């Protein structure tokens, strides 16, 4: 029987000093988390702006409102731990160490992008930082992460793999097949559902009769509910979970409860037929992870408005720098078109059949 740990959302009225102490987070770290989330917010706003004027094309899914799901989940990890995600992954890549410039240049489709402009918004990869993508098929990345867990165990390493998915992904067979295998082989994988309540425009409650927290029960995988708007709780949970998994606790499942402040993608409405404007406004007002942490830190006199303005100014500068860098980066050259289709072009035989000059 799976154990289920439920952690209630912390009340904002609680004293911050004691709260930081309770979760074992230093003042300095708390300020860092705020700094990180501000960067993610400003980065995504910059991407939004660039999309609006046509500098970014295709699908572009923003993480605005869900920043704690990048800072809180990834910052506690080691640099050699693996992170994999779906397509709302810009900020998670940055949290894992991918330079914001490389992420923005990828969104712009430029040569200096993390995939040389060939992946785009949904396919950020960085082998050096062990950011394993950036995948565009709902749930498709979940078996891949299970395979990374397999490799960690096969090579007897002490790293962990954290994989993110949206709430809609748990209805894919890929999810259940993966959890079953992770359980029978005790793989070091943390399966994180960024549960923002809606799979595109479909409320989770309309496509599942069981609660999210129960989704891993059938596989005997411990489930954890984490308030994904509270970055301190998220950080503490992932710090502890990663350590447990590193020490052989086996796969874990996290229902990271969060909320998306924007539409599913840049081409989708923020609200409308599937959720009301009031609902979104209420969440923005009451559940903004940045504002929640800011208020805690200010209440405890760890932050004043000048320091906040300075911090925010730095975040805006970095986001602008990323955009300027992307703007100045060259478009991929003609040679890039056929490059890296194959890792190994065999000595014999033809691999390309379009009859074009390469």
């Amino acid at each position, binding site marked *: 029987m799976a154990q289920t740990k439920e952690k209630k959302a912390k009340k904002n009225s609680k004293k911050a000093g004691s709260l930081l102490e309770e979760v074992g987070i230093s003042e300095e770290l708390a300020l860092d988390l705020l700094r990180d989330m501000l960067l993610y917010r400003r980065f995504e706003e910059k991407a939004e702006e660039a999309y609006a004027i046509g500098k970014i094309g295709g699908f572009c899914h923003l993480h605005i409102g869900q920043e704690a799901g990048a800072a809180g989940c990834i910052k506690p990890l080691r640099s050699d731990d693996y992170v994999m995600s779906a397509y709302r992954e810009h900020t998670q890549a940055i949290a894992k160490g991918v330079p914001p410039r490389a992420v923005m240049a990828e969104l712009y489709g430029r040569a200096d992008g993390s995939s040389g402009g060939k992946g785009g918004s949904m396919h950020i990869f960085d082998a050096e930082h062990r950011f394993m*993508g*950036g995948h565009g098929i709902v749930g498709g990345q979940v*078996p891949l992460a299970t395979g990374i867990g397999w490799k960690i165990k096969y090579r007897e390493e002490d790293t962990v793999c954290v994989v993110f998915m949206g709430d809609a992904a748990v209805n894919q067979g*890929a999810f259940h097949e993966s959890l079953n295998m992770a359980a029978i082989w005790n793989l070091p994988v943390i399966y994180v559902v960024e549960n923002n309540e809606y799979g595109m425009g479909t409320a989770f409650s309309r496509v599942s009769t069981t609660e999210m927290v129960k989704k891993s029960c059938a596989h005997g995988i411990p489930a954890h509910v984490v308030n994904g708007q509270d970055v301190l709780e998220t950080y503490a949970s992932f710090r502890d979970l990663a350590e447990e998994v590193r020490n052989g606790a086996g796969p874990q499942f996290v229902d990271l409860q969060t909320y998306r402040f924007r539409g599913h993608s840049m081409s989708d409405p923020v609200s409308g037929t599937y959720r009301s404007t009031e609902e979104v406004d209420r969440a923005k007002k009451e559940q903004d992870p940045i504002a929640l942490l800011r208020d805690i830190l200010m209440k405890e006199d760890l932050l004043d408005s000048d320091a906040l303005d300075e911090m925010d100014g730095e975040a805006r500068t970095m986001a602008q720098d990323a955009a300027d860098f992307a703007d100045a980066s060259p478009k991929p050259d003609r040679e890039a078109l056929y490059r890296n289709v194959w890792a190994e072009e065999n000595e014999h035989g033809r*691999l390309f059949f379009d009859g074009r000059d390469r």
Partner: protein
Amino acid sequence: MAVMTYREALNEALREEMERDPDVFLMGEEVAEYDGAYKVSKGLLDEFGEKRIVDSPISELGFTGLGVGAAMAGLRPVIEFMTFNFAFLAIDQVINHAAKMHYMSEGQFSMPIVFRGPTGAALQLSAQHSQACETYYSHAPGCKVVTPGTPADAKGLLKAAIRDDDPVAFMEGELLYNFKGEVPEDDDFVIPLGVADLKREGSDVSIVTHGKMIHVALQAAGKLEKDGIEADVLDLRTIRPLDMDAILETAKKTNRLVYLEEGWPYAGTGAQIVSMIQEEAFDYLDAPILRVTQADIPMPYAKNLEMMAKPSADHVVEAVNKVLYR
């Protein structure tokens, strides 16, 4: 040369490559304790242990994706499908993930993985278990496709596939597992991908084919010989990379060609080959190229109907006579 079955040749290839490289492991349904549904992995569990010879749950999508992720992280998985008929459940992981990963990441992640198992029809297994699946994989850039027809080719090509840094769909023949043939005893017998093999030489007509259909082609060539017709039988061995030089060479030599394949005609491998020959050797052709394929229907169960549906040596002889205007 040693004489062994196609099954034993595959088993040897797996054993040798696993001895050579500790990152190679085999995963699939019934591959370990049961010794493989077709006994290809016989004895390997005893030799390499359960860490490297792994029985999976019946979760084609799941364990295929696990292999893809493991390959991304640096291992060299061999994923066995009990048959490629079951691999449709996993094709998202092969096409959308394995085949595209290297390109999407601009070369940061390679995908040294082999997906192997039997393809095509056996005997009276009816529609869902009797289909040739090559073209589903050869269609996608980023995925190599290998179809050995003899024990020697099975061994040499599987070793090459395991060593290749790209995903390879390695498609065997269920009816070939007991087929015996000579296999070089060389310790490191590897057949490079992309090299076709002229299985029989003739000058009147070319029968080009791949996989287990080479045996049908050779049978047809035997019949034609009695009639004074000498056929080149060219075995492609790998569909991608494709040995276009060898195809053009035989086309230019005999000027008349028949493509034989086990799969369906529409957008089949033969369709691709015909298109390329007419683009690159049109002036050498003395007749339109004909294709012999499975009947364009799901495979029926009844023995007589199944025999009618499968491409046969008689179908090939008939097509050859047409391209020779006899």
